[in-house]
């Protein structure tokens, strides 16, 4: 009986925490218009989130582009389709790897720093101080960071994909010797702006919502101790990553399944 009771309590706790998270998210959304009217706050956050993630995103994009070109070339030559290397790299990046890898890197870099920042603000009673000054902390502190994350993510993903394609170009044309003209023209005829690039942008916006909301929630709800904050940052990365991957499956099925 004890085991069953514990299972019951665990499930109730789980439901409660999901409900808690959902309420937090809804209140966050409700604070968005107020934050938008003070766009200066959002701009400051875009710098903190976006600019500071640039280096890792660009470096990773380049690396992924190199590797994709090398790996795919090996397989494509078996089918005599080495010329479509550019196309395959492009589609892999723009549809999948760009949004997903960017989101995972974002969760790790920007997500954890958001969680730690909010957690420490809470621990240092800065949030309480603001509340007692009759300031809505959701609109002043949380929502600007949320909006910044949702704006920054698609831009970062686009940069990841673009740099990846350029990296693949360097490997394909420079190293392997594929024809440069074909490299670009096959992409241009094979990649659809709305279907591929557009859907990729939509994906990365959804991932931006997930990663940023999770990061803010974990920071806001953490215990005000060093261990609490450390634990919260770990939870941000894990939860956001799982959320992104699950959502990716859903979105890919919706967007790219053959009608």
């Amino acid at each position: 009986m004890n085991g069953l009771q514990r299972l019951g309590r665990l499930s109730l706790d789980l439901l409660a925490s999901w409900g808690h998270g959902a309420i937090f998210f809804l209140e966050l959304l409700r604070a968005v218009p107020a934050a938008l009217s003070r766009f200066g706050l959002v701009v400051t956050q875009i710098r903190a989130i976006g600019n500071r993630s640039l280096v890792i995103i660009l470096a990773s994009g380049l690396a992924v582009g190199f590797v994709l070109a090398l790996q795919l070339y090996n397989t494509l030559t078996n089918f005599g389709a080495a010329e479509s290397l550019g196309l395959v790299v492009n589609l892999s990046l723009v549809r999948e790897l760009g949004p997903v890898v960017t989101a995972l890197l974002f969760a790790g870099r920007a997500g954890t720093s958001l969680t730690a920042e909010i957690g420490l603000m809470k621990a240092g009673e800065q949030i309480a101080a603001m509340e007692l000054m009759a300031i809505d902390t959701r609109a002043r502190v949380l929502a600007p960071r949320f909006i910044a994350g949702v704006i920054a993510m698609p831009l970062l993903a686009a940069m990841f994909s673009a740099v990846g394609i350029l990296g693949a170009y360097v490997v394909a044309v420079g190293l392997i010797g594929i024809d440069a003209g074909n490299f670009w023209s096959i992409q241009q005829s094979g990649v659809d702006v709305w279907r591929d690039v557009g859907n990729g942008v939509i994906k990365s916006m959804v991932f931006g919502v997930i990663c940023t909301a999770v990061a803010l929630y974990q920071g806001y709800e953490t215990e005000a101790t060093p261990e609490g904050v450390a634990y919260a940052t770990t939870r941000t990365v894990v939860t956001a990553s799982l959320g992104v991957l699950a959502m990716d499956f859903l979105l890919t099925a919706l967007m790219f399944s053959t009608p």
Partner: protein
Amino acid sequence: MNKKSTEVMVGLFVVLGAMALLFLALKAANLASFTGGGNTYTVQARFDNIGGLKARAPVRSAGVNVGRITSITLDRVTFQGVVTMDLNADVAFPKDSSAKILTAGLLGDQYIGLEPGGSEQNLGAGDVITQTQSAIVLENLIGQFLFSRAADGGSGEAE
């Protein structure tokens, strides 16, 4: 002031992101070839078998893009595939032009190739292309091949 430098950096970030998006859209995708979307006229063509043709596939003549397929439906009466396409307004085709379903490369996507006929009248909006050649279906091809081989073998061995 610190505020100014923040705004500059963020502006730079947004510009870089926008450039990346534009690069992806123009250089690495088909947005550039989209711009003929201004003036087009719509024609239809009927095929017995459209093969692997998909909507938004290109329409080419002599290998040059002249239009795009907008929709593919099944005619419930004649059970033919009806392909609706938009052609660039600045290219006029004779009324007896033929439409074939061709494949780009050996394993590539399929598209419609238009070959001009000799008529003095041109296709107008809403016209139907009457001369069509369906897609080549691999199974039919193999079936034909086997059948002709069997026929040859049979006549060869007839004693």
